[in-house]
């Protein structure tokens, strides 16, 4: 059974290659067919693996071949199948399949369908490699692979300069995190002499005592990588701009899978993080901060997709909060349910955007609930899960698990942040849904909206809707044995916390409904002037991080670079280049194209050489 494991990434890779080499011949429809079916086959392989694994849950490693051999450094191409990688694998191929399928509807008639599917398949292959790699080097390969695909897909509509800039920004900011991660890997290898994950987790406690500065530094560097990839403070600025890509890309890469890679990384290396309580606390604190900051920013966005992007940051903040209180299982559980409902929200948003002729500004939409019933249903179910509507949604159970872990670990401040965050979540969710589907339509595009039709449009939405309800929460990730067991807090308090969390969510929803349905005019007045306007501007620009980075880092660096442009060392370096250029010019003049000239020069050369030989004889 384990032999089918490589298929999960080889099939999408084969899809990429087919599309790359024969894409022009396949056409748009054929490309979509290849792109969807390769992921479908990978999902099938995953289902078979899951079936076998659940019957006999035993972690297995499949070593394909040795990758590099330099002295003691001998990383393999080895795949590890255990509860954690299986969970992630299921999310990637399962949700990935639904999104690929939906994209067949979404991308219909767009330019570059072949390119789109080639990159999407490559992304799935890289992401699968990331979660299956049994050593950190292979994980890093997948890590960079998904980064590359993210860059390529954000810049899919590359004819617009802003999209290219967004892709570049995403690449650059995540690269900062990746540099941290790479240095962290070097440090781990130097200290522990291996990059094999199982071996690493065994050696770490032997090498380091808890709280040792060495392990704290290593964990900090790994956390840096995770922060960049998962768009957490302070490396979060790229995600909102990344919405320039096609909506299925946002759903797959920037909501369901890639951005949660950081969570996976921390959970996978939990042994290292548990030895570094300081960094673990920092993880939770950053998660909580991101959760609140992104939640506020989401309240003041006017673009549907940017609301969802900030919401994604905020939800990943929840996961980091869970990691910070050593609730690894809760984090992975939330990762899974979040993949379901956030993919649903993005796909529903994509449906709305296409239906409204590429209108995605909240102020220009409205009153669509009658015209787009399926998208409305999708938003309602996904929004309910996002806002953690008690008992009936998947989001409620996963968020509750996180809050319970925070409580059980005795982190009152993180618990409070989580509760406050769920209030914010409910508010911006309500604002989003009301803004799109209620009130009056603000543009011609919205008034002429036509609902999407066909299986490729409907089935992914309905499937994800089912997964976002309590049905999704019934999928229990088989994480026992891979991750440390969850803490058990004081008995009896769990129910009380559930009631508290549920009522906060309900309060948020009620408050949101009251504010956005009945007090709209009052609200608009408040944000139009005075302190409200300033707050709106601050939140609308995501707390001004972009401007701060521009002023603190980008501009001084540019100034430095332009100042260093003509310095002495550079001038010295220019001299050989200029000499070479001059020689080149002189020599190219001899290439006059006159055959007889060449013959004469050859004869002169031969005569000279013979003369030297005669003189020497």
């Amino acid at each position: 059974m384990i032999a089918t494991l490589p298929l999960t990434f080889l099939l999408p890779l084969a899809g990429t290659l087919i599309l790359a080499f024969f894409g022009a011949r396949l056409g748009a429809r054929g490309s979509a067919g290849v792109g969807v079916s390769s992921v479908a086959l990978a999902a099938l392989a995953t289902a078979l693996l899951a079936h076998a694994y659940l019957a006999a849950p035993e972690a297995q490693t499949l070593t394909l071949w040795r990758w590099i051999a330099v002295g003691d450094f001998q990383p393999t191409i080895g795949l590890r199948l255990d509860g954690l990688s299986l969970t992630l694998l299921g999310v990637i191929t399962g949700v990935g399949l639904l999104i690929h399928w939906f994209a067949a509807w979404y991308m219909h008639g767009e330019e570059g369908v072949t390119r789109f599917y080639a990159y999407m398949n490559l992304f799935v292959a890289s992401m699968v490699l990331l979660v299956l790699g049994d050593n950190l080097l292979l994980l890093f390969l997948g890590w960079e692979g998904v980064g590359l695909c993210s860059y390529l897909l954000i810049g899919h509509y590359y004819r617009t300069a802003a999209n290219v800039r967004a892709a570049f920004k995403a690449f650059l900011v995540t690269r900062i995190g990746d540099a941290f991660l790479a240095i962290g890997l070097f440090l781990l290898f130097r200290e522990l002499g291996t990059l094999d994950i199982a071996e690493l987790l065994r050696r770490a406690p032997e090498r380091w005592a808890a709280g040792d500065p060495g392990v704290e530094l290593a964990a900090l560097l790994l956390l840096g990588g995770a922060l960049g990839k998962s768009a957490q403070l302070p490396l979060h600025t790229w995600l909102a701009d990344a919405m320039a890509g096609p909506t299925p890309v946002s759903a797959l890469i920037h909501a369901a899978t890639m951005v949660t890679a950081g969570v996976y990384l921390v959970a996978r290396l939990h042994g290292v993080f548990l030895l570094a309580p300081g960094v673990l606390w920092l993880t939770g604190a950053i998660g909580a901060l991101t959760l609140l900051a992104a939640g506020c920013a989401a309240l003041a966005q006017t673009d549907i997709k940017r609301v969802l992007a900030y919401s994604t940051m905020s939800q990943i903040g929840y996961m980091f909060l869970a990691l910070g209180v050593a609730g690894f299982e809760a984090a992975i559980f939330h990762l899974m349910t979040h993949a379901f409902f956030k993919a649903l929200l993005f796909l529903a948003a994509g449906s709305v955007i296409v239906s409204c002729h590429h209108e995605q500004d909240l102020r220009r939409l409205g009153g669509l609930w009658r015209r787009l019933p399926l998208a409305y249903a999708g938003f309602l179910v996904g929004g309910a899960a996002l806002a953690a509507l008690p008992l009936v949604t998947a989001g409620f159970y996963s968020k509750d698990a996180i809050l319970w872990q925070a409580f059980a670990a005795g982190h009152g401040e993180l618990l409070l942040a989580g509760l406050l965050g769920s209030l914010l979540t409910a508010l911006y969710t309500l604002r989003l849904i009301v803004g799109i589907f209620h009130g009056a339509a603000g543009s011609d595009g919205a008034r002429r909206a036509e609902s999407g039709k066909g299986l490729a449009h409907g089935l992914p939405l309905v499937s994800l809707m089912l997964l976002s309800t309590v049905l999704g929460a019934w999928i229990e990730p088989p994480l026992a044995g891979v991750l440390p067991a969850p803490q058990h807090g004081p008995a009896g308090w769990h129910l009380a916390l559930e009631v508290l969390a549920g009522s906060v969510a309900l309060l948020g929803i009620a408050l949101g409904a009251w504010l956005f349905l009945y007090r709209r005019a009052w609200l608009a007045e408040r944000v139009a002037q005075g302190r409200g306007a300033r707050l709106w501007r601050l939140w609308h620009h995501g707390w001004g991080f972009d401007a701060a980075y521009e002023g603190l880092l980008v501009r001084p660096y540019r100034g430095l670079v332009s100042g260093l442009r003509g310095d002495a060392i550079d001038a010295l370096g220019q001299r050989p280049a200029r000499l070479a250029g001059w020689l080149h010019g002189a020599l190219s003049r001899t290439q006059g194209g006159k055959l007889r000239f060449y013959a004469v020069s050859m004869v002169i050369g031969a005569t000279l050489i013979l003369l030297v030989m005669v003189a020497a004889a």
Partner: protein
Amino acid sequence: MNGVPMAHGLVLAAVLFALGLAGLMFRRNMVFMLLSLEVMLNAAGLAFIVAGTAWGQAEGQAMFLLVITLAAAEASVGLALLNQLYRRFKTLDIDTASGMRG
């Protein structure tokens, strides 16, 4: 005197070679350039024969056979090029085909 000194044979080869070379350099007509090339190849073959017979070795003649083969190959390709040149430029002036300059 019995027999030809080897040096005389080689001098003959050198003179023929120099003549061919001069022709190659100062003719502009491609037909004449190809003829000059043939002269030079032939001179080289002569040098091989002279050396081979001087030492009483058959390798000289075997090498001459290779030179002839080379000449045949060169002539066929050169004449094909000549044909193209004439067809494209309506002249045999080699200087017209000077478009490939650095």
